[in-house]
């Protein structure tokens, strides 16, 4: 259990958190119409007459959206409901053309599942925890209102109206902002592995409603508030903290918490009540009579299962077991699907058994490649160096052509020019040398130029050995094989 506590005037308070995540489904067309679900169209261009709720227009569900949701459910280890149905959630708002949102209340597509969050001592998560997922269902997104383009009018753009969302509802199992953050990161990772949502919170393709309540440890749950539409993990964590503190203040000040919808203001780092939506609470859900119950065939479910990729937890276990990677490396490489994909392409390109090259490859990826990408501000799928080039570089190190130092040098040139490492080595003569004659000649020069230090060394100052290695390497432009240099120096210095 988390030890996260809020210190109030009356003692310690525990925070209880549940998250409802809205994740935009990756699909070409919208959930119930043939209009494009892509971002970035001109206002009201990605809108069909169905999305605009013209009289007599009817919804027909998009198979891909259902498939994506089923696969996501499977990735959460959840039960897939072969019989589900769509319900209407009725309320009036200008971004909701039908006057109802087609959602699933009574019979969701996906039932209970779990998400495991890892121990993270720095974040105060002492051990791995399993967070319950209550349900996952499919629903329509609303349109957008623009408020700042006219002094007295708001403008309605329905491009997002009808785009498919998955709502993933957790159980109230989290006890600290860090756990909520870890849950969201893990969920985002799973969604990206499955390919059902790009997880991009900045663009709004993933957003969270945050349910928070506080209680004295051991007491029953307190009354919760729901903070709507928080659009980054950092803000989710901050909103929880500020809302939990507010609740403690209210209760300790003799007040009571009202079950209500709130909004998080990142500029002020506080939540405030959204009274404007209060009277919309009676949503009058009922089964959408324009749609039939959604019955999934065994074949459809089996096909979804077959299409499911290896998921982060399984992949990490495999990296640690089969590939023999350290736990840290395995965790870093599997946390994001693009990294894992790159890493596996790198292993493939080496043409060698994974277990043989994985450790060196993972070290190089995590330190050298990540370092470079960080510096360049690029994501791994934008890397200027391809997995094939990376594998080639690793091979040059493995066969002794390049020393570690030379490899770093070559890598920098690769980043700059995009050239293959072999070509760089060839053109720039960066090959490591084990030519004992040449090395011995240089050693002789170094010793002649530093006769005093030779004397000191021979007089027992062993530490100077490193100085001679450095001088020799420097004189050879870094290209000497360090092993050979060591060996020959020992011999020469006696």
């Amino acid at each position, binding site marked *: 259990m988390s030890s996260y506590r809020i210190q109030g005037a009356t003692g310690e308070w525990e925070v209880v958190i549940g998250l409802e995540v809205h994740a935009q489904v990756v699909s070409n067309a919208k959930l119930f119409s043939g209009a494009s679900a892509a971002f970035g169209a001109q206002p009201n261009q990605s809108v069909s007459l169905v999305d605009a709720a*013209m*009289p*007599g227009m009817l919804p*027909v569900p998009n198979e891909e959206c259902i498939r994506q949701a089923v696969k996501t459910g499977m990735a959460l280890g959840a039960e897939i409901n072969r019989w589900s149905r769509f319900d209407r959630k*009725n309320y009036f708002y200008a971004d909701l053309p039908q*006057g109802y949102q087609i959602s699933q209340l009574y019979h969701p597509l996906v039932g209970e599942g779990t998400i495991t969050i890892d121990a993270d001592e720095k974040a105060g998560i002492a051990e791995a925890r399993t967070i319950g997922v209550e349900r996952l269902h499919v629903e329509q997104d609303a349109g957008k209102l623009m408020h700042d383009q006219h002094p007295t009018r708001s403008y309605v753009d329905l491009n997002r109206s009808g785009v498919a969302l998955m709502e993933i509802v957790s159980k109230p199992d989290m006890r600290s902002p860090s756990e909520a953050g870890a849950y969201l990161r893990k969920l985002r990772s799973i969604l990206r592995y499955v390919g059902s949502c790009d997880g991009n919170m900045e663009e709004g393709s993933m957003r969270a409603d945050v349910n928070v309540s506080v209680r004295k440890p051991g007491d029953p749950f307190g009354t919760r508030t729901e903070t709507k539409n928080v659009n980054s993990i950092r803000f989710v964590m901050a909103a929880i903290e500020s809302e939990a503190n507010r609740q403690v203040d209210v209760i300790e000040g003799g007040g009571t918490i009202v079950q209500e919808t709130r909004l998080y203001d990142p500029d002020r780092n506080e939540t405030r009540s959204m009274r404007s939506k209060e009277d919309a609470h*009676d949503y009058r859900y009922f089964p959408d009579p324009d749609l039939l119950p959604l019955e999934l065939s065994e074949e459809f479910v089996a096909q979804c299962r077959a299409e499911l990729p290896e998921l982060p937890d399984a992949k990490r276990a495999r990296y640690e077991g089969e590939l023999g990677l350290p736990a840290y490396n395995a965790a870093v490489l599997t946390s994001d699907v693009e990294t894992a994909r790159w890493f596996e392409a790198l292993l493939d390109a080496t043409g060698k058994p994974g277990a043989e090259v994985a450790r060196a490859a993972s070290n190089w990826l995590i330190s050298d490649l990540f370092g470079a990408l960080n510096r360049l501000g690029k994501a791994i799928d934008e890397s200027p160096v391809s997995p094939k080039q990376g594998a080639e570089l690793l091979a040059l190190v493995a066969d002794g052509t390049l020393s570690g130092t030379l490899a770093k040098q070559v890598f920098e040139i690769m980043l700059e020019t995009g050239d293959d490492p072999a070509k760089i080595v060839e053109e720039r003569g960066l090959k490591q040398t084990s030519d004992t004659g040449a090395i011995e000649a240089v050693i002789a020069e170094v010793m002649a130029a530093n006769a005093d230090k030779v004397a000191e060394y021979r007089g027992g100052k062993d530490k100077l050995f490193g100085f001679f290695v450095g001088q020799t390497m420097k004189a050879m432009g870094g290209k000497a094989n360090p092993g050979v240099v060591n060996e020959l120096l020992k011999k020469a210095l006696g």
Partner: protein
Amino acid sequence: MTAITDLGIAGLRDGFRAGDFSAREIADAFNGAVAGAKALNAFIIETPDHAIAAAEAADRARAAGELLPLSGVPLGIKDLFCTAGYQTTAASRMLGGFTPTYESTVTAKLFAAGAGMLGKLNLDQFAMGSSNETSAFGNVVSPWRRNDGGNAALAPGGSSGGSSSAIAARIVPAATGTDTGGSIRQPAAFTGIAGIKPTYGRCSRFGIVAFASSLDQAGAMAQDVRDSAILLEAMSGFDPKDSTSLDVAVPQWEANLSSDLKGKKVGIPKEYRVDNMPPEIDALWKQGIEWLRDAGAEIVDVSLPHTRYALPTYYIIAPAEASSNLARYDGVRYGLRDLPEGANLQEMYAATRAAGFGPEVKRRILIGTYVLSAGFYDAYYTKAQKVRALIARDFEEAFRQVDVLLTPTAPSAAFALGEKSADPLEMYLNDVFTVPASLAGVPAMSVPAGLDGQGLPLGLQIIGRPLDEQGVLNAGLAIEQRAGFTAKPQNWWAK
């Protein structure tokens, strides 16, 4: 020779093909009849240009030997079907001036089959009503009058009252209707015409202004059974744009018409013998039984035990669905907007919807909102859907014993306009015989079977198994042939 406007679909089609007249002559004759019958108020807009264009295309097609099933036939279209480029109002202020940029699937099929459109027919507002008194464009008047010498304006039935009135007055040869709880069959019965509501899912709902999605079904209204079969055939068919559309082939109903009912069993549901049923209707029902027996059918008494709960079930489900279906009329994207000085968005909604909906529509929206609201959903809506399941099961069990059911269509002949509009509940009770088949989604039709003592038409209803429109049409044909219904209203409206 018979006047062109006395002909129905089959007569026009066959006469046109035989070269008795051109399609243009047909269109001109009906356009003239429509223009001369304003007193009926059957049309919200007239579209003579559409009828003429279709007629000219039909004449060219005939010359080229490329006839389509409905070449030469003009139709009236209930103003609940969206028609591209032609105002579609659902008889509401809310959609006054609304001109769809799209075509309903049913009208698209009819036009593709060669039919032309004479105009958009008046109806009860958003198809909510049984007398056509809720239209924002005024009452439709039935061409029929009582034989008491009085001039009381009678209701053409509803909600497809423009359709029934226009067909009965012979100003359109046939028309589309929609039926949610009897809106094709009851007006057909009131005006001495035939009308069929097919199995739920036969006709696409795409482009039809929705009232109650799980009940709404388009259908055919015409002078007789054969015309109903022809029109329904052209309207029906699978539509991938409607999730509830049935992916089954459309049978050749017209070609397979047969009034020989040998080997068929006709069920007489005892629960349809309601209190206060006028003796004339009871007598007509008995007469209908004899006609079907005469056609070779075996008559079997059956029971549909939950019949009496059909109306209250309907008046939960239909308003609930309507309250949600009509939420889109908010003054933002189309139709009426009422924006009082200084009003905010939510106030604009409330003002727009107060101004755009008539009293009956508001009443149903409020009932629907109430029965779905927090704390009442299970007691009303879930309960109603359970009773609906029982009603559907009643039919299933009955259809294990019999092929079709015979009942009266309505508990009375046409009443006078204004006679029942004061008490909504009394109006609702008029649908007592038609609502059960709507709840069960099974096909049903009304055929004219006789006149009451006041000289007003009465109809008999045939209800069939899911997808057995043929059985319904055939039993209807057997009644039609024996009833010999030839009565027509006296023409008082033409000028």
